[in-house]
């Protein structure tokens, strides 16, 4: 190593990101007696007016990031709430028009579980299977639409494999069919360009903590023209034009606004830097045999890579990589023994799903850290293959799929 690195190294930016210090600075100004602590809904004094000003400034910053009108931004607690508000909100409001929803099998659980709830309420949901590259195509959407379809909900970028869908092409189809289009952009907002008008998106979920803002704050973009209506899921003081009640957390909102401002300003440069880091990492680990990228190699987020290391198991690989903060597609990290539903939907067999790791690079990742990660991964994979009976058999030219395993 030429450059010293501090361990553990954080390579899990798709999970969450550290708050940018510029964002921290803005947030801390909105908390205490000598700062902007007021309730943005207070109309009778300057504390409220100042807080409202900060909230509206942030609303403009976030709207700018996605080329929206500030009046189309609704603050929520995060992308999970945004997804729930969008999906249940549309379904409940338009139920007289139809009760069919189209989504994909590899959406985030916030989308899938909201859809499951609607199924229990009598709605019908089509779960599209993505292609083997992890992409849900416009053609798949077109062929799933019915006369009673009221909503299509498709993620922009996938949280496990980092693949990016062609949202603009899907938007053409849904707009022409008069179907409302919701996009879960939790992983893409601030990382790749989003223009809600050009993409013909009607609803878009965002989260601050995936773009170097704080946890606990997110937003839902709700289109005004043509107007999209949603039924509120949280009732109370009528904040956010009745779509989401609850006192607005000024510091959280100001933080998300600042995070959006920085993301927009630095997006092009950051994307090219992260793409280079990702390619550097792949160039390193793909020097080993039997190593595969999960999901499309090109159509993906700049800093995200999901890799299967055949013949070694993900959890034991993680154990060997304790200097790296990464996540595994293997089941063993969770309480269930099922491997990732996303990787299975891609058509990966269970053993390749068990052998996968997700690496995600971000604003504070350095080349030295990537090089160190490559070294560590190589060492761990080689060590575990040394003790893997499957690797032995592969070396002996045995096709593992011809063996009758005693499943347990």
């Amino acid at each position, binding site marked *: 190593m030429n450059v010293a690195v501090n361990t553990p190294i954080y390579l899990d930016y798709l999970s969450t990101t550290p708050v940018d210090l510029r964002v921290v600075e803005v947030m801390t100004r909105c908390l205490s007696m000598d700062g902007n602590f007021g309730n943005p809904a207070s109309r009778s004094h300057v504390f409220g007016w100042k807080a409202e000003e900060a909230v509206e400034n942030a609303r403009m910053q976030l709207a700018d990031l996605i080329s929206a009108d500030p009046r189309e931004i609704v603050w929520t607690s995060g992308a999970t709430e945004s997804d729930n508000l969008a999906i249940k909100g549309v379904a409940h409001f338009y139920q007289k028009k139809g009760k069919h929803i189209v989504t994909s099998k590899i959406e985030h659980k916030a989308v899938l579980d909201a859809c499951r709830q609607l199924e229990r309420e009598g709605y019908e949901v089509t779960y599209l299977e993505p292609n083997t590259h992890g992409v849900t195509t416009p053609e798949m959407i077109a062929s799933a639409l019915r006369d009673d379809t009221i909503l299509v909900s498709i993620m922009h970028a996938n949280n496990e494999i980092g693949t990016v869908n062609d949202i603009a092409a899907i938007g053409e189809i849904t707009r022409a069919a008069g179907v409302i289009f919701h996009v879960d952009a939790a992983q893409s907002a601030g990382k790749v360009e989003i223009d809600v008008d050009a993409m013909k998106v009607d609803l878009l979920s965002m989260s601050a903590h995936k773009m170097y803002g704080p946890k606990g704050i997110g937003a839902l973009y709700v289109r005004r023209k043509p107007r999209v209506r949603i039924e509120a899921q949280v009732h109370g003081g009528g904040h956010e034009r009745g779509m989401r009640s609850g006192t607005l957390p000024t510091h959280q909102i100001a933080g998300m606004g600042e995070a959006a401002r920085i993301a927009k300003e630095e997006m092009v440069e950051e994307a090219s830097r992260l793409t280079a880091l990702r390619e550097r990492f792949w160039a390193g680990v793909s020097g080993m045999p039997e190593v595969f990228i999960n999901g499309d190699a090109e159509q993906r987020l700049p800093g995200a890579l999901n890799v299967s290391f055949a013949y070694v198991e993900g959890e*034991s690989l993680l154990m060997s990589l304790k200097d790296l903060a990464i996540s595994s597609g293997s089941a063993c990290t969770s309480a269930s*023994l099922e491997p990732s539903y996303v990787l299975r939907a891609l058509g990966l067999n269970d053993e390749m799903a068990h052998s996968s790791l997700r690496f995600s690079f971000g604003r504070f990742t350095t080349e030295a850290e990537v090089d160190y990660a490559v070294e560590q991964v190589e060492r761990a994979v080689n060590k575990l293959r040394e*003790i893997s009976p499957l690797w032995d058999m592969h070396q002996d030219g045995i096709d593992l799929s011809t063996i009758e395993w005693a499943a347990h």
Partner: protein
Amino acid sequence: MAYSDKVLDHYENPRNVGKLDDNDEHVGTGMVGAPACGDVMRLQIKVNDAGIIEDAKFKTYGCGSAIASSSLLTEWVKGKNLDEAAAIKNTQIAQELSLPPVKIHCSVLAEDAIKAAVKNYRDKRD
């Protein structure tokens, strides 16, 4: 998930990793598990003419607990006769390694592996 010190020790320094000649009539091989389930163990024993296990080797594809369970097992079976080895219970392995409930199946797999190896050896000799 937190691993016990013993699991970590076996994982970092696995004992008796390797392969014995399957064609040797003194060698019994047990291979259990399935790649799709996330673990496969291959346990091999070498039995002398007195019926004592004088060597044991393993290779395991699986989580740290599966690797530790099979590593521990190779230590335990050496010096035992076949009946003693086949009598090893998964609960003993789980207890020794302080496996959490979600990892008990790793110790079950290890018990299956030694039983399969003993059976394979006996079938060969019959």
